[in-house]
């Protein structure tokens, strides 16, 4: 259920502007990898290259290789839609489908991909909601609109929706930045549980969060505004936050820069 990701010399562009340059790193299965760095350093862009969501933006393109186990996601004959089925994503702002009920939101990935068996769907809904620690809060109102939940519940609903399709990898783009501390804690606890089953990559601005939840941390930065972002270093979280190899990483995590 969980695979290793290796990025080799990934470059991403928005039109003619290069957003990230030469990123190479490995993401270990069944672990949480956090990506930190100042705004505009390309960590979100890099995350979106991992499930080929970057290219959805008009004019955006990616160069380089992203290997899921040994398969290049950007190789010839690879369908971006199929890649996204394998790699789930949770976004910065909770974005449940406003026209769907809680149940339909969770089931949407399966149902819209052609699974119609009600029993299979119901089981997947319960399993995913339990997996997202939301089942007890919503089990009596599965038919109500997903948009009626609180922000933290909505975000866990989005996590349930993402894991319902049983992806290999779960990408999280600042999943707690729109949430209060208690909801944030709930999601962080959830991540610790989910890493038993999925490879998790999380982008965060919150260094305490990265220190709390991740096993490995990658630090992104950019030379100057307008320059592409680069991966400065990636190592175990403990090493990055106690004894980083690079001066710039130390400056950033001690608050002297960024």
């Amino acid at each position, binding site marked *: 259920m969980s695979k290793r990701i290796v990025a080799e010399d990934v470059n991403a562009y928005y039109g003619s502007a290069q957003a990230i340059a030469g990123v190479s790193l490995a993401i270990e299965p069944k672990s949480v990898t956090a990506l930190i760095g100042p705004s505009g350093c390309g960590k979100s862009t890099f995350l979106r290259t991992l*499930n080929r*969501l970057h290219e*959805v933006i*008009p004019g955006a393109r990616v160069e380089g290789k992203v290997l899921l186990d040994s398969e290049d996601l950007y190789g010839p004959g690879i369908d971006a*839609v*199929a*890649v*996204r*089925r*394998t790699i*789930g*994503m949770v*976004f910065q*702002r909770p*974005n*449940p*489908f*406003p*026209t769907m009920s809680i149940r339909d939101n969770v089931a*949407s*990935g399966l149902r*819209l*991909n052609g699974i119609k068996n009600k029993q299979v769907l119901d089981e997947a809904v319960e399993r995913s909601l339990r997996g997202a620690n939301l089942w007890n809060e919503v089990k009596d109102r599965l038919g109500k*609109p997903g*948009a009626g939940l609180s922000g933290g519940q909505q975000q866990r609903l*989005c996590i349930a*929706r*993402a894991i319902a*399709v049983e992806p290999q990898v779960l990408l999280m783009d600042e999943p707690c930045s729109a949430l209060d501390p208690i909801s944030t804690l709930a999601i962080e606890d959830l991540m610790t549980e989910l890493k038993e089953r999925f490879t998790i990559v999380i982008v965060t601005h919150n260094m305490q969060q990265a220190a709390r939840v991740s096993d490995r941390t990658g630090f992104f930065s950019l030379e100057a505004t307008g320059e592409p972002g680069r991966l400065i270093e990636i190592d175990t979280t403990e090493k990055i936050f106690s004894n980083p190899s690079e001066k710039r990483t130390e400056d950033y995590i001690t608050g002297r820069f960024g």
Partner: protein
Amino acid sequence: MSATILEQIPGLGDDTRRLHAPVRLALLALTVLVSLLLFAVTPLQGQADFVVFVVVAFAVVQTATSFALEGRRHALDRLLSLGVHLALLAAVVPLVSVLSYTVYKGVKKLDGQFLTHNLTGLGPLDTNGGEYHAIIGTLEQVLMATAIAVPLGLLVAIYITEYGTGWLVSAVRFVIDVMTGIPSIVAGLFIFAFWVIGLHRGYSGLAAAFSLTILMLPVVVRSSEEMIKLVPAELREASYALGLPKWKTILRVVLPTASAGITTGAMLAVARVTGETAPLLLTSFITPATNTDPLSGKQAAIPTFIFSQIGLGRPVNYDRAWAAALTLIALVLVLYISARLLTRRNTLSRR
């Protein structure tokens, strides 16, 4: 220093120096009285003149009083508030009076007999007869026009927002904008020349529906386009991230989210063409008989019914025209309300 600041905050400052509602009512009453007096003793006259005079006088009196008591800022506030409220009144009064006058004039003739009979076999002085044939015609023509224009317009809007790129989109937008400006009689004339005469199809409800389609299409396209653009990019990305292809994202996420707005736009287009008269005169023409077949033969419609009745000029004709006008408004209202009820469950505003 602190005292003057406190005075500027309502409820905290010097309350005796504010113009309270009873004071303002008294000012208004005084203005009306003085105006009545002036209209009685001077050559000033006329109801409309009186209303305008009172409004202007009250604006002057209130602003002056406010300026003296409350200061410049409050005086300006009162003047502008009065202006805003008058503007609201100026917008609402014509609307309400059109509606209420139509109801008042229309209910006289509007009964079961009027709704279930046509105008065949009637002499010019007969007061029975009805608009059954016109209701049938309008329903069929508008239904057909909607059935063509809404799917087509929605497809064009989807193309513009989701698929098209570059000059082709600009070209399509330009054509749609130009179509918005086509006078309705020109749309009718085009169908008349192309379909009725050119292809020898003759008058028919279908021809009328075609001309109405030309008028509906740009409205549907532009409103749907705006509504589709309002759907947040995050929802599309959420759908893509679940591994849904683009067409399914549009069909199952984007369109349902925008459905309330799209329906409203479509209903506005329907409301607009339901009252069109000019193109119908060239495409379905006028007939006193019921024609349920929209594919061939002259067919009546409510707007052309009103037009032809007014042209006859007798009191009974005016009554029929008013009753038909009321039916037309009611029809549009019923269509609008039912469409809103259908899409009420799925709205963006419930987020």
